[in-house]
């Protein structure tokens, strides 16, 4: 055992000199999230080898050894944020001291964006209810990476930067807890891996676990499901139920809500990062108006006319006595 430990420590010491020697600088240190920036990395690249560079976990589009001190690298598309540079001289990648900062919005040509509409922990409601959500994720095939998916951790959370390192899924499902951020969350998957993921999100009331298995909440491929107009053809307006509308967008905007005879404009507040959608919650439904139609219309710029963004919405109908939730969402 002692020998094994010694070998491990020796291996670490051998790997550290690599960091100390190379690389030394990166220029420019930032570029757009769409990728394509030609970056020069200076260091000790004396060995004539096939060098490879990773930005977080994403390979550079190309890596060229120009001379013994220079690599020229073309950046890949990447989520915004400071990305760790890894360099390999062969099969093994070594973490460098360099970072490259990707600027701009999420590069949606290369990443699919999923919306997790509600992810909460122990929210107390009426009639002794206590609501939780439960998010499971699994790989249908391969080991797809999901950016922004956070493992459950209740005591000490050591997490990598979510924009740089995805959570790799396997064919064993894993449970992902409510993020220590907003309840609503965008996740990102590189498009070539998007079809490999299966998720399951359920809201339930622990105080009524005996009575039902809760309510499935859709996890939405946001850029396919969202639109500038969202409609719900038939929503109950009855004192038995309380209705709550949650509206999501990728940009802060105004949305006009028509619910039966009620019309209001709400402002979606911006999220703090690409993982947080712009969001608003609204519940001013008419009471006892029978079945009503609900329509949401995204704000349109006037001069020149242009759509500012797209919206998606979730409407929950909760029975006031039983606290049973029915989720309505835009279909199909």
């Amino acid at each position, binding site marked *: 055992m002692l020998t094994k430990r010694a070998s491990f420590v020796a291996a670490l010491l051998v790997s550290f000199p690599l960091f100390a020697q190379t690389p030394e600088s990166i220029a420019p240190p930032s570029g757009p999230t769409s990728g394509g920036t030609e970056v020069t990395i200076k260091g000790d690249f004396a060995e004539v080898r096939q060098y490879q560079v990773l930005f977080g976990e994403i390979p550079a589009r190309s890596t060229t050894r120009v001379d013994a001190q220079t690599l020229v690298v073309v950046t890949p598309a990447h989520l915004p944020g400071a990305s760790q540079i890894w360099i390999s001289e062969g099969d093994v990648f070594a973490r460098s001291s360099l970072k490259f900062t990707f600027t701009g919005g999420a590069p949606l040509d290369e990443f699919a964006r*999923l919306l997790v509409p509600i992810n909460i922990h122990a929210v107390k409601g009426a009639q002794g209810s206590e609501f939780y959500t*439960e998010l*499971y*994720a*699994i790989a*249908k*095939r391969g080991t797809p990476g999901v950016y922004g998916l956070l493992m459950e951790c209740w005591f000490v959370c050591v997490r990598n930067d979510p924009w740089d390192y995805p959570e790799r899924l396997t064919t064993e*499902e894993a*449970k992902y807890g409510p993020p220590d951020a907003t309840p609503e969350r965008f996740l990102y998957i590189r498009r070539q891996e998007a*079809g490999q*993921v*299966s*998720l*399951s*999100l*359920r809201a339930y009331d622990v105080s009524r676990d*005996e*009575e*039902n*298995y*809760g*309510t*499935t909440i*859709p*996890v*939405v*491929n946001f850029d*396919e499901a969202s*639109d500038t*107009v*969202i*409609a*719900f*053809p*038939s929503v*109950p307006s009855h004192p*038995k*139920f309380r209705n709550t509308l949650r509206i999501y967008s990728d940009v802060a905007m105004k949305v006009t809500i028509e619910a039966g005879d009620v019309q209001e404009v709400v402002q979606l507040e911006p999220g703090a990062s690409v993982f947080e959608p712009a969001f608003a919650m609204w519940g001013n439904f008419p009471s006892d108006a*029978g*079945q*009503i*139609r609900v*329509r949401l219309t995204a704000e349109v710029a006037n001069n020149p006319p242009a759509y500012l963004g797209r919206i998606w919405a979730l409407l929950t*109908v909760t*029975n006031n*006595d*039983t606290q*049973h939730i*029915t*989720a*309505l*969402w*835009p*279909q*199909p």
Partner: protein
Amino acid sequence: MTPFKRASVLIALLFSFSVFAQEIPWSITPASGPASGGTIVTIRGPIGSWPYDAVFGSVWASARLIGDHTLEVVTPPHPPGTVNVRLFEYDIWRETPLQFTYTGNLPEEAFERILLPVYVPPTFGAQGAEFRSDLRLAAKTNDVTVWGLVRDCIVLCVEPPDSPVTVSSWMRPEELLFSPNGTPGRFIYVRNEEAHQLVAHLRAFDVSREATNFGTEIPVVRFDSEADTTIVLPALPTDRRFRNNLRVYATEPVVVTITAGDIQGSLQLAAGRSEYEPAQGSWGNFPVDAGLVRVTITAPGTTTKIWAFATVTNNDTQVITTVTPQP
């Protein structure tokens, strides 16, 4: 105008109408073509020199005036069947006695196929339950034509089952109801260019427990984009409190393999009788008291895509939770 002149004009008008009526009869050549469209048809009849559009059933096509009383039209894609042909003359409708027969299979490339997974007449269950499904369709802003449905009609149903229905944004919720008219799972079709306008709401509910909840939303599925060769439902309960039922759908009657925890089974999907009925089957041989199990459904040896969802029903309260493939 003198009485003589008036009489002359009247006679001339009557004469001219009779010329149209007798000498320019309506005709369409050819009178049939593939459902994929693209057939060049010649329409002759009492046609003037106005700009014309032709409407096949409820699908528009622009017409070209190629001679006296003669239009040339390229047929648009349309589900198979015989449709009436109407003309739109500048700003008015012209009814014609013409019909065109679309042959072959539904042109999948021109239509969005949408799955209604469970759409049934009242069904009686345990503990006095009476399950119903409630389907409502609407349009966001512009009208949408939907093939495969019959509008809810209790007393007098005038729509033949094969004709499409048009839904609008201005309809009241009670006008948007539709009736089940086939197998529990059903495909409906919308033209690709109108698909983003469609709004659907499908809800299963137990009439005997309407006071306790609003029921369960059933997903309405864009089948061709959401189906896959493998479907995985990550965490399904196997507690005795619940009974689970898995429903599987495909476009072909394939055999699917189902793995639920330690149990593996196979299911032959029953073929649909038309393009409006998916191949479908249900399976309930879940393990009992095995905690949360993963359910994997595949169609080995084929590239046919499948879609599936599970229902988890509480045996006492009959409350249904759906577990669906996400995203």
